[in-house]
């Protein structure tokens, strides 16, 4: 669309800007302020410069949490994206089955995150949970409170259960926007199923998939409530992700300076990854326009 250059558009943005400034800029500035000071009480504080940042970057516990975080985010993306595409392809397209399926698939997305944790806690407990009990009956000593592998597998399974619907629904709506004429043309050409997927469906899905991957990356990087309820970060600290380390430090130990520095590092990592995605989206839209024009 040809946009008109008009700076009065700022007036339309102003209410939103004020509100977001109140909820985002002021708190962020507070964080920056804390990150360069050592606060003893309301009246005693010292300027420390970059000391907290150095300390945080060299902290082995946080480095481990960062590695775990990336391992987790990449694993769930690698599982959920192909699975979501697959489910979108086999979902019924018409009639009451389609509506019923949509409602069922959307359900996990609308459950509060801590309740998701509770559901899986109840489901996987060895004594009262169907899955935990079943695995033990089958002869596998399943125990998420003692075995880190079990804890990881369960958290990944929970995340797949919780978030694959998002990718599936995005892809489903992308597939719905393909005109029937495309499929008819493919049938005339005797195209195989794979060829239809590769040359008709996948190109149409790229737009929604970029949104999906972006949202999934962001939300998996911010994950807090589900593993906190399910495993509490344990056994040991094998499932402690960044948000939980930060919350423990900020609220539990009240270490204002270090946790503020940690917050900023955390935020910058997400910002960097998302900037890459954002530029990719913008370039793709430009390419589309060039093709159309």
């Amino acid at each position: 669309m040809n946009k008109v250059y008009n700076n009065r558009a700022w007036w339309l943005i102003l209410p939103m800007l004020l509100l977001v400034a109140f909820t985002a800029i002021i708190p962020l500035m507070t964080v920056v302020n804390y990150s360069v000071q050592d606060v003893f009480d309301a009246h005693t504080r010292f300027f420390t410069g970059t000391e907290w940042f150095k300390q945080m970057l060299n902290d082995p516990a946080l480095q481990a949490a960062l590695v775990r975080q990336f391992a987790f985010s990449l694993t769930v993306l690698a599982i959920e994206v192909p699975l979501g595409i697959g489910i979108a392809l086999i979902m019924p397209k018409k009639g009451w089955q389609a509506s019923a399926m949509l409602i069922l698939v959307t359900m996990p997305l609308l459950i509060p995150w801590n309740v998701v944790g509770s559901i899986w806690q109840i489901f996987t407990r060895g004594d009262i949970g169907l899955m935990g009990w079943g695995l033990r009956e089958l002869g596998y000593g399943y125990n998420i409170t003692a075995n880190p592998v079990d804890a990881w597998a369960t958290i990944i399974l929970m995340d797949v259960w919780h978030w694959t619907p998002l990718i599936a629904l995005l892809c489903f709506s992308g597939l719905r926007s393909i005109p029937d004429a495309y499929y008819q043309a493919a049938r005339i050409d005797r195209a195989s199923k794979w060829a239809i997927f590769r040359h008709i469906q996948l190109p149409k899905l790229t737009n929604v998939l970029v949104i999906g991957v972006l949202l999934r990356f962001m939300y998996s990087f911010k994950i807090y409530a589900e593993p906190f309820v399910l495993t509490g970060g344990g056994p040991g600290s094998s499932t402690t992700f960044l948000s939980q380390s930060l919350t423990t430090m900020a609220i539990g130990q009240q270490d204002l300076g270090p946790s503020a520095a940690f917050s900023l590092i955390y935020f910058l990592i997400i910002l960097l990854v998302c900037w890459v995605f954002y530029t990719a989206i913008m370039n793709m839209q430009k390419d589309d326009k060039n093709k159309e024009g």
Partner: protein
Amino acid sequence: MRNILPTTPEAVRDRAAAANNRRRRRARSASTQWRRRGLVGIYVIFLMLPIYWLLNMSFQSNNEILSALTLWPQDFTAEHYVKIFTTSNWYMGYVNSISYVLMNMLISIVVALPAAYAFSRYKFIGDKHLFFWLLTNLMAPPAVFLLPYFQLYYTVGLFDTHFSVALAHCLFNIPLAVWILEGFMSGVPKEVDEMAFIDGYSFPKFFVKIFVPMISSGIGVTLFFLFMFSWVELLLANTLTATNAQPIASVMTQTKGASGIDWGTLSAAGVLTILPGIVVVYFVRNHIAKGFALGRT
């Protein structure tokens, strides 16, 4: 052409071969259909099993839960639901959650509508940077803002009110609303605006009377997402409230008692947090398919 009888032996053979092919293809597509249905069935079972288990637990007495594993309630009881609906602490949790979610939806949509319009129709100084900055707020981990929020809302006297949570959730909901609405608004041709202005509509009148009705399905989808992300968030809601505006999610942590966890009540409360979501999905079910692409297909 089909009705003409074949006259040469070659034509007869051709037609028989074609019919054979058709039959075989139909048989194959029937078997792929069944395989497809089987896969959908497996996925639905995987989706529903944990939720069924929660439902199963919520109708059992704590005695039954702990004594033996039963696949369905042997001794059906609704005591946990009765407890939730008769204890003010419990049911107020739901009222609190729903009230801050509704407030947040209202605030977000009202300020996001004009902003999204500006982004979809005009170029102005800093528009691209502003848009990216908005998206960064969507990415910000709530854990980063935990401490400053607590101090900020405490200072301005909003701590432990519904309004504080509604405002805090604006952090990620306003950018989300602007992002989704911008997609839908860009789908409306610009000639609509120009025609309205030629017809003498003022901007506010045009916006409310013509433009908003045109993107009503987009607004519906946006409201659905706003509901979703505000309803499921816990960390901020939990930190900014104490007793007066406590969300249901933090009331649920009280099931941990001296004698262990009250599994039955926890399950019943969990089931009740799923219900509002189902109601909302039911209303927007015909728009989900289109809406999830956020107006960008």
